[in-house]
């Protein structure tokens, strides 16, 4: 759901980031309207806790306000960068509750050419990503979801599912090979 005005609907992410650098609060509000729903969905899916998810969501946008220069438009799209941050923050939060799980995630550079500045392009890409996942064999899809949404490594997935480690590695590698092709073409179609 968006409450962006017509002018802000047309403003590019890069232009809105420039305005945030000039301390324009309406630009932050516009980016929030554009991407909060998308980020909220992934945070709630990972954390299964709306309150914590919303605290992290607010913090991500406040960080964007506080240090907009951390995003480099020359290196790719803002939503991809925000999604990497949101997922890393959520997985780190999960691991804080279970310190034995996994290794620490650090903020990573993300290069992507996707353009999700309009609700239509978000819907279009969403359909393609869902389609890409649904076309995977169920066990491959489950392995990808364990890794992405639950932050599990190969051996943690093997432990969770009871499958041999080698099987899990093969499944995930096959899934990733397929996703590389389909997500690459999906991303390309929204630029």
């Amino acid at each position, binding site marked *: 759901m968006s409450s962006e005005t017509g002018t802000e609907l047309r403003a590019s992410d890069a232009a809105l980031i420039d305005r945030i650098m000039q301390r324009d*609060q309406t630009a932050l*509000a516009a980016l929030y309207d554009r991407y909060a729903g998308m980020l909220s969905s992934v945070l709630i899916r990972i954390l299964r806790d709306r309150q914590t998810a919303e605290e992290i969501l607010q913090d991500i946008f406040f960080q964007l306000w506080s240090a907009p220069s951390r995003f480099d438009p020359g290196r790719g799209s803002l939503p991809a960068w925000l999604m990497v941050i949101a997922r890393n923050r959520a997985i780190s939060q999960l691991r804080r509750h279970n310190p034995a799980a996994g290794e620490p995630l650090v903020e990573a550079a993300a290069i992507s050419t996707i353009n999700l500045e309009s609700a239509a392009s978000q819907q279009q890409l969403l359909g393609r990503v869902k389609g890409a996942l649904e076309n995977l064999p169920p066990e491959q899809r489950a392995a990808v979801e364990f890794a992405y949404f639950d932050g599990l490594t190969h051996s943690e997935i093997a432990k969770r599912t009871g499958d041999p480690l080698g099987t899990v590695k093969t499944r995930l590698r096959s899934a990733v090979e397929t996703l590389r092709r389909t997500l690459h073409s999906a991303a390309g179609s929204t630029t």
Partner: protein
Amino acid sequence: MNAHPTREEDFDLYALGALEGDERLAIETHVVSCADCARKLAEAHGRIALLALAAPPSEPSAGVKQRLMQQVRRDAERSSALPASPGVPARTSGRPSRETPRSSEPFGRWWAAVLVPVGAVLAVATVLLWTDNRQLDRQLAGLRSAVEQQQQQLQEAREAADMIESHDTVTIALAQQPGMPAGAAHVMYNARMGMLMYDGEIAPAPAAKSYQLWLVPEGGKPISAGVFNPVGGRTDHWMMKLPQGIAAKEFAVSLEPAGGMPQPTGPMVLIGRA
């Protein structure tokens, strides 16, 4: 520089978070010195990020944006170097107003003149009560969270006291290494309990760097005990939990890229033998 990853999908597996141990480390150490692979890894992060879109749609509560913009307003007001805050946009929606059209028929009846204001007052009261209820819910959630936090702190304090009093807890002094920033620290460690407490003083880490504390076991690779950036140089009673039963050979503090590394890559600033 170690070898390039043999398969392109290794970058995606890394971005997915599935790799661990040596596989993960091999990519992390390689991309530090290979710009081409660092770019491929960033592309993989961008590609894998798209999976977020597969999450079931869930809009945040309206209060999140309200709280965010209040936070932003406070931040803008605090900053004396900035021009007067432009404030939150007066609009809350870009859509045209959806006010219900008023009836063109005049209120000719006496009861309408009474009931309309009463209705308006009731509507306002309902909204105020609803708002109060929401505020109380939030306060209750905040109090619950504070109680849980205090219980956790109490539990940690009990565990720390147990560790300090335990006969098998050892104290190791960590000494400054030649050519490194001035500093000294000590670690209390109990292998049976898997607990460690760090106290020390060290020069603040340079920009984009963090200090990282390592437990070096008798056999095997160093184990990260945590990343820290001491404010004012001092770190007091920093408690950490580690896997239980690991015999320590030594403890060390290294200087690493901000956020820390899976294995030490930077210079050792402090070292102490157990």
